[in-house]
């Protein structure tokens, strides 16, 4: 396809600027995002569940009634089904005191029929991974972080479009050509282009939906003023599944959970319920959302049917897969395409792989930026020092990317050691991640990209290898770390593969630093810039 060269040149600049502004933010979002696909197995790897005394699901009604009598003020709670039916967790009600409460309350039936209420203490690794995915780790309020990643995602979409435009002229000739020659820049460029093109649909979907997740408040506010004349709340209220729920707060007896599930099955036999979420329980206004999956449809993480908990009538199916209105179904599919919450484990693994490939795409983009600004000895006719900007970006790339990878691996591995030893594992997870991340960044700027790159790659490989090593150790010498045999080899195998990959990269980077061309930010040889701090400072 022929595109005028001046247009291509223009879009190359657009691509460079949007890419360089967002690359590091997006790396963290994508790496953490890949891990969010498996945050439940990670959580279970750190805090293996203790032996569960089985309580039949049929006793859920008894549990609810006794808990209600014990804690009459608690009207909103959830009854998880799946872990009960698989024996992974006891039959219990849970409720939280805020949206991102790391430690929910739990109520379980004791053998004598009484109810025990206690605060749960999940490791919180899922919350940390989720927070990093949404905010790239920008500390403070979640809203600020998501606003930043929302804007970064907008630039990322422009980077995608401009990247495709500059590729189009050479697309037919170069597509899927990976030229493994002495020209390393060519190899990185080919790899960058293949990664970008092959996963382009995924990236467009992720970019657009991430813009919406980051900026929906601002867009809704504008639409409310301009389109709805300040009356959007009527449209929102008219769409709420709760609009037809009763408002009567007088006490009333509720139907037992198995009854509610039977009604759900009658409505949609293909729907697979995973939990019941109660609202205003014990009153005539009581409702229950039966959450669940239906692999035949694109739904948000889960869909639900809203029922009256007292009379069992179906109040709304607007979020029930296969029973949605057309607008709801389309919007649900947008969510599903971002979350990868469809098609089962194949899609889950694909999204994991695509997320990691995305992180690699941004990493290689930064490498290309550095490489295209390289000062060569051939042109200068003698030893050269690289520019300050390329040295700084190289150090930032190495520090941020490897700080994120190493920090997450270390905090996961440490979680298993600290579980049961410290009282607030959740806070430890965050502390370990941020200490490692900031330490890696400081190290990269202090040592320079060439040395720090090798060292941080080895450190990340070691931190990642600590995950299967911890499992192995706890298996060989059960003691400080509880080991659940045969359950979670998946986390260990993936971490082992990751550690080997990082070690391989470390060896390559080491060789490059020692014997590669010395006129580069990645060289540690005499005559390279690393040995000329004076020349660097004079730059």
């Amino acid at each position, binding site marked *: 396809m022929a595109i005028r060269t001046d247009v291509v040149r223009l879009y190359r600049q657009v691509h460079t600027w949007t890419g360089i502004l967002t690359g590091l933010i997006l790396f963290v979002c994508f790496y953490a995002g890949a891990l969010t696909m498996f945050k439940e197995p990670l959580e279970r790897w750190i805090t293996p569940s203790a032996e569960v005394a089985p309580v039949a699901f049929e006793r859920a009604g008894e549990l609810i009634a006794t808990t209600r009598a014990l804690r009459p003020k608690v009207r909103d709670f959830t009854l998880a089904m799946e872990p009960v039916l698989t024996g992974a967790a006891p039959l219990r009600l849970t409720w939280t005191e805020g949206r991102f409460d790391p430690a929910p309350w739990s109520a379980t039936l004791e053998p004598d029929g009484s109810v025990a209420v206690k605060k749960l203490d999940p490791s919180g690794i899922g919350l940390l991974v989720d927070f990093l995915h949404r905010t790239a780790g920008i500390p403070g309020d979640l809203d600020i972080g998501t606003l930043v990643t929302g804007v970064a995602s907008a630039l990322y979409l422009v980077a995608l479009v*401009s990247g495709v435009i500059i590729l189009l002229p050479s697309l037919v000739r170069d597509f899927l050509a990976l030229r493994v020659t002495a020209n390393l820049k060519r190899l990185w460029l080919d790899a960058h282009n293949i990664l970008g093109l092959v996963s382009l649909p995924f990236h467009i979907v992720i970019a657009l939906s991430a813009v919406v997740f980051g900026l929906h408040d601002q867009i809704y506010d504008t639409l409310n003023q301009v389109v709805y004349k300040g009356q959007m709340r009527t449209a929102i209220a008219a769409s709420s599944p709760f609009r037809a729920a009763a408002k009567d707060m007088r006490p009333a007896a509720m139907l037992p959970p198995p009854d509610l599930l039977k009604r759900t099955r009658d409505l949609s036999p293909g729907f697979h319920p995973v939990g019941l979420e109660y609202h205003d329980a014990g009153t005539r206004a009581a409702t229950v959302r039966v959450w669940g999956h239906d692999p035949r449809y694109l739904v948000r993480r889960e869909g639900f049917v809203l029922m009256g908990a007292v009379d069992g009538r179906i109040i709304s199916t607007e979020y029930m897969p296969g029973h949605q209105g057309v607008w709801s179904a*389309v919007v649900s599919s947008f969510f599903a395409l971002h979350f990868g919450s469809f098609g089962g484990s194949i899609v889950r693994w694909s999204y994991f792989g695509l997320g990691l490939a995305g992180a690699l795409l941004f990493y290689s983009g930064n490498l290309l930026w550095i490489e295209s600004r390289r000062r060569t000895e051939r042109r200068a006719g003698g030893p050269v020092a690289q520019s300050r900007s390329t040295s700084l970006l190289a150090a930032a790339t190495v520090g941020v990317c490897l700080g994120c990878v190493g920090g997450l691996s270390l905090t996961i591995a440490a979680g298993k050691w600290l579980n049961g030893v410290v009282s607030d594992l959740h806070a430890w997870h965050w502390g370990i991640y941020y200490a490692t991340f900031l330490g890696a960044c400081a190290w990269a700027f202090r040592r320079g990209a060439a040395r720090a790159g090798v060292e941080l790659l080895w450190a990340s490989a070691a931190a990642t290898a600590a995950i299967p090593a911890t499992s192995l150790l706890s298996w060989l010498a059960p003691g400080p770390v509880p080991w659940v045999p045969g359950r979670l080899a998946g986390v260990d195998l993936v971490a082992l593969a990751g550690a080997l990959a990082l070690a391989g990269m470390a060896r390559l980077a080491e060789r490059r630093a020692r014997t590669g061309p010395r006129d580069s930010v990645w060289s540690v040889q005499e005559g390279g810039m690393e040995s000329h701090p004076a020349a660097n400072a004079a730059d």
Partner: protein
Amino acid sequence: MADVRPDSPPQPPVRPDWWSKSLAGVLLGFTLAIALSGLITWLGPGGPAAINKYQFTMWIVAPIWLGVVSFCFLFRSGLRAWLWLGGANLIAFAALLASRGRLPH
């Protein structure tokens, strides 16, 4: 994105005009996306009160807006970007004002 054939008259090169084009794309692209989303709200199937349509029309803002930002560098100059996008905004907002009615309660 025209092919440059030997017989076609040479076209003047596209001016970069970074600031002017970027601002036009980001600002006028956003307002255009809001207006087009509003037209879908009021004129699209189901009218403004269709269940959960307000979510769809919010989502649709992002692709329109960023599509404009992405392609606005194809305008031959920043001035042209402002004129074309400004004109498109005028038309879209005139249509939106004409189509906005009362929200049913």
